[in-house]
């Protein structure tokens, strides 16, 4: 039984092909301005990778802010439900999941049987985590992927305190002008994002075994800082950015049966 899962995010689009319980292939690319076109491109690439055609796929699930604009007939689910299904697929015994995406982040808590007990979305002031990181990478003239490692080689703990990413940007700009070492600024940026995520987790008293997913979860600097600030055991699945899409595929399969 072949199913596909699409996560049409505001910044990146992810598609996954699921064969019974194994991920056959996945594709991640930038959404750009046209969600429909981006989804189509991503679907074509992933079908090619899996060596199958669209007809072989029996049901399609879609999630993300652009789920209504997906150019295929699909079962639609919210990010909260799909993140949960995706996380439980990898780790059935986990207590919750934190999704750090490009535009905003979510914390979801579930009980022993995997029911969603509570969830919290970041408030408006703390949105734009992904965009904020990209903007800082540009300002510091650093490649986004390297930011994580560099932030771990900081010599001193400095604070980027503001919640609002625009204001955090101006704080960082003034630090650059004051010739604060780059690694320390990166450490400050990662701590600022990590404390926002921890704030979200505290809001729903999320503890225990927590799965970190989403595009930003690959940033080792952020996950390490989160480990320092949160007293719970954090695990990052090996393909964290497609867990949402995987959840959508599982949702489609469930509705099919």
């Amino acid at each position: 039984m072949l199913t596909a899962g699409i996560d049409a995010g505001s910044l990146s689009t992810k598609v996954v092909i699921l064969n019974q319980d194994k991920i056959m292939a996945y594709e991640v690319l930038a959404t750009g301005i046209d969600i429909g076109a981006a989804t189509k491109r991503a679907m074509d690439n992933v079908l090619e990778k899996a060596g199958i055609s669209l007809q072989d796929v029996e049901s399609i699930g879609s999630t993300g802010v652009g789920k209504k604009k997906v150019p295929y007939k699909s079962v639609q689910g919210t990010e909260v439900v799909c993140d949960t299904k995706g996380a439980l697929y990898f780790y059935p015994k986990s207590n919750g999941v934190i999704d750090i995406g490009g535009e905003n982040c979510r914390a979801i808590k579930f009980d022993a049987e995997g029911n969603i007990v509570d969830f919290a979305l970041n408030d408006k002031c703390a949105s734009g985590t992904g965009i904020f990181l990209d903007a800082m990478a540009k300002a510091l003239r650093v490649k986004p992927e390297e930011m994580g490692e560099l932030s771990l080689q900081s010599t001193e703990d400095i604070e980027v305190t503001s919640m609002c990413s625009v204001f955090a940007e101006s704080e960082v700009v003034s630090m650059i002008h004051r010739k604060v070492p780059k690694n320390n600024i990166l450490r400050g940026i990662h701590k600022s994002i990590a404390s926002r995520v921890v704030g979200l987790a505290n809001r729903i008293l999320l503890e225990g075994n927590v799965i970190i997913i989403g595009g930003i979860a690959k940033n080792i600097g952020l996950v390490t800082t989160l480990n320092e600030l949160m007293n719970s055991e954090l695990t990052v699945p090996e393909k964290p950015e497609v867990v949402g899409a995987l959840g959508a595929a599982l949702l489609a399969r469930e509705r099919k049966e």
Partner: protein
Amino acid sequence: MITAGVDVGSLTGKTVILKDNEILAWNIIPTGPDSSETAKEVFDMTLKQAGLTMEDIEYIVSTGYGRVVVPFSNKNITEITCHAKGANWFFPSVRLILDMGGQDCKGIRCDDTGKVTNFAMNDKCAAGAGRSMEIMSGLLDTPLAEMGGLSLDIKNRLAPLSSTCVVFARTEVLGYLHEGTHKNDVLAGACEALADRVYTLLKRVGIEGDFVISGGIAKNIGVVKRIEQKVGLKANICFEPQIVGALGAAVFGRGILEKKTAKKK
């Protein structure tokens, strides 16, 4: 008497060299990660252009976001005071100045000598006013210079954006794009939101007398037109609005020198 002004903003570094109240040479370059480097670079370029060396400059005033980090300046004055003096130099009858830098936007009132009598700056939530145009330019992949013109050519309906928060406006733009709203309509919404934010600021300072817009935003015809319409005043814009701050600094340098020589006599 030769003096110079160095304006190190968060986005651009500017220098103006003034000789007996005439602009001898000026330059603008993007600010790099190290602002004192940028200051040095733009200053040397302008010196070479004017065929002068560092010793020929009798007094240097630094201003802008990185004013304290300019190693070779004799004094640092805020961009608010310098923009007032600079605007007064270009248009002696000016009483109201709007300056939009990368980080803040400022409404300034001044008297006939260019001395600041009152000023107001955006509050935290509407921060990064100039920066928001840069973000919009990235999201809509439209060069900054073209944004103003396109924003006046509305296709069907202006897409309203929040005038209260830049981050929120960013999320809204993504929403509009994904709904297929035409780029010009979103640009119009962005310029309208910025004009709204500016209007609230100018109202707080009091809208009277001749009006000058300085800083990068003066080059965005979309924002300028909308501000003029809301404020009900024609905006005087000099040939290069981005150097008004640096020019003001140079004029202050002249003033300080004149006072010094007068005291010596």
